[in-house]
């Protein structure tokens, strides 16, 4: 299987500049700048590749870049989204630990393509080693003339600033990230205007996920067509999947899109741990609908197959649920999470996530009634799509799918009427 994002992970000290250069990192940036390959041609190659945003939304990256107006006279910003915090997902963290220079190379090629002179690298506050690695890499690259003034002697300059978050899931949402970067609370903003037109500091801004940008150097080297040949027609390329739960070998695996979820669990992950049976999988991070084993058997890890199964690829954080788990309890954990992380701007989300959490608390404690399950269902129907960002829907999807897929577990925990 072709490795694009993780190709250097097996190399000792792959995070150091000397090793990265021996691995070919920065050779594509050099080619872009020295040929030079015109920014519009870089955008065109990425468009042709079909590369889609790897943070969760799956928006075509080349198209996002092409929305940036080049004639406003304002600076253009690139924000790298390294605020990885979708439960079940730990891929960006390992990318940054193992190949931070590839990340920087991808970001600089993207910056060149969109006409950006300042890259903001937004990294989640909890990350320790990934932050040290990206800061050390940026400093090494700056000293070597790769980042900053006159990049690789090309006359083109681009600053690279690491901006540390401080603990807020919502800052992974691109407009929440921008609010946080501007020095505020990480509150998402109403779209339109989209960031490409009016983003950070009121200027055109592209926000790209770490993994998305790490695919760009390969696309420059091999061409958009070559990338488009990997994976499926509508979901080209590779994807790093994080697998957690009771499988024998949990971790991050780079697979061509379209790879079978069951194959990933059985082959790469070595199957379930002894004594544990597969009960369910949440394939795209905690925000997407849960799948039962019969669906897992036919689900392919690409955007279309996931949708055909009624779920999403999302951030590709595959949460493998074993037979010992209590689905009501797990949903209770998720409701607490989304309630805790709601920024509070929109009433349906602020009140709805808290209400769902309180109902689930009642049910988990054995104080729930059948009516509570109905309330949970109708409440989440009303929350869906009624807010500035997708956080409310990110709880709606697990609630509705857990209720639909495992109704018996909820019913077993509630009573007909309020206990005396």
């Amino acid at each position, binding site marked *: 299987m072709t490795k694009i994002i993780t190709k250097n992970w097996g190399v000792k000290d792959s995070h150091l500049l000397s090793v990265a250069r021996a691995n070919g990192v920065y050779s594509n940036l050099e080619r872009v700048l020295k040929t030079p390959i015109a920014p519009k041609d870089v955008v065109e190659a990425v468009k042709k590749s079909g590369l889609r945003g790897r943070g969760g939304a799956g928006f075509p990256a080349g198209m996002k870049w092409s929305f940036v107006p080049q004639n406003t006279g304002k600076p253009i910003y690139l924000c790298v989204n390294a605020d990885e915090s979708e439960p079940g997902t730990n891929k960006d963290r390992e990318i940054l630990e193992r190949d931070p220079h590839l990340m920087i190379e991808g970001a600089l090629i993207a910056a060149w393509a969109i006409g950006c002179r300042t890259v903001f690298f937004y990294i989640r506050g909890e990350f320790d080693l990934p932050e040290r690695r990206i800061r050390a890499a940026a400093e090494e690259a700056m000293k070597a003339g790769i980042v900053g003034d006159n990049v690789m002697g090309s006359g083109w300059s681009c600053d690279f600033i690491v901006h540390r978050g401080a603990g807020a899931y919502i800052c992974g949402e691109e407009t929440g990230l921008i609010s946080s970067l501007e020095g505020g609370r990480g509150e998402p903003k109403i779209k339109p205007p989209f960031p490409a037109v009016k983003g950070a500091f009121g200027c055109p801004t592209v926000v790209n996920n770490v993994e998305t940008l790490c695919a760009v150097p390969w696309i420059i080297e091999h061409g958009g067509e070559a990338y488009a040949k990997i994976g499926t027609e509508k979901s080209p390329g590779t994807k790093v999947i994080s697998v*957690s739960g009771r499988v024998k070998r949990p971790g991050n695996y780079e697979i061509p899109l379209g790879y079978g979820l069951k194959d990933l669990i059985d082959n790469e992950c070595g199957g379930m741990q002894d004594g544990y049976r597969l009960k369910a999988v949440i394939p795209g991070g905690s925000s997407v609908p849960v799948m039962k084993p019969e669906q897992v058997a036919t689900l392919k890890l690409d955007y279309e197959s996931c949708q055909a199964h009624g779920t999403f690829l999302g951030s590709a954080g595959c949460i493998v649920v074993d037979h010992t788990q209590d689905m009501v309890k797990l949903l209770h954990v998720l409701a607490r999470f989304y309630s805790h992380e709601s920024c509070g701007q929109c009433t349906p989300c602020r009140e709805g996530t808290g209400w769902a959490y309180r109902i689930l608390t009642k049910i988990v404690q054995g104080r729930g009634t059948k009516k509570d399950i109905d309330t949970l269902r109708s409440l989440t129907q009303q929350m869906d799509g009624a807010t500035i960002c997708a956080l409310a829907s990110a709880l709606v999807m697990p609630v509705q799918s857990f209720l639909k897929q495992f109704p018996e577990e909820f019913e077993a925990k509630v009573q007909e009427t309020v206990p005396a």
Partner: protein
Amino acid sequence: MTVSSSTLKLAPEAEARIDDLQRRYPTKAATLLPVLWEIQTQVGWLPQEWMAYAAARCEVPVSKVLGVVSFYTMFHQEQPGRHHVQVCRNISCTMLGAEAILACVREKLGVTNGGRTADGKFSLEEVECLAGCSWGPVVQINRTYHENMTPEKTAQLLDSLE
């Protein structure tokens, strides 16, 4: 807009880092998170007088600083213990045994979520996903990740801290 003044100063290297960032960011207000991090790294938490310092340094109202500080879970308005023990309680860690780890920490330290031991050595915070799901349960102490934890390993870890 009222901007406060402050006579406080961070260590010279931290002041220099802030000066450097304020040259590179488009606005001074945008350096608020970096400034708050510099303060918390040096002072250990964010006392009110230091929030006023941040307001002056970034040319924003103190109320805005408090709004920002209270929004993010990692900014402390009270002094945490020397070892701030953060236990992930999200879905993957829960499946892998986070509850037993939490019970162990609560019992060993005699504190609950948000609490600090009387000697100021430890504080406990139940946190959301730390992006260590594949290697859960995860415990983070100050900045260091400890993965694949068990109650036994957690107890040993707490005992080993000075």
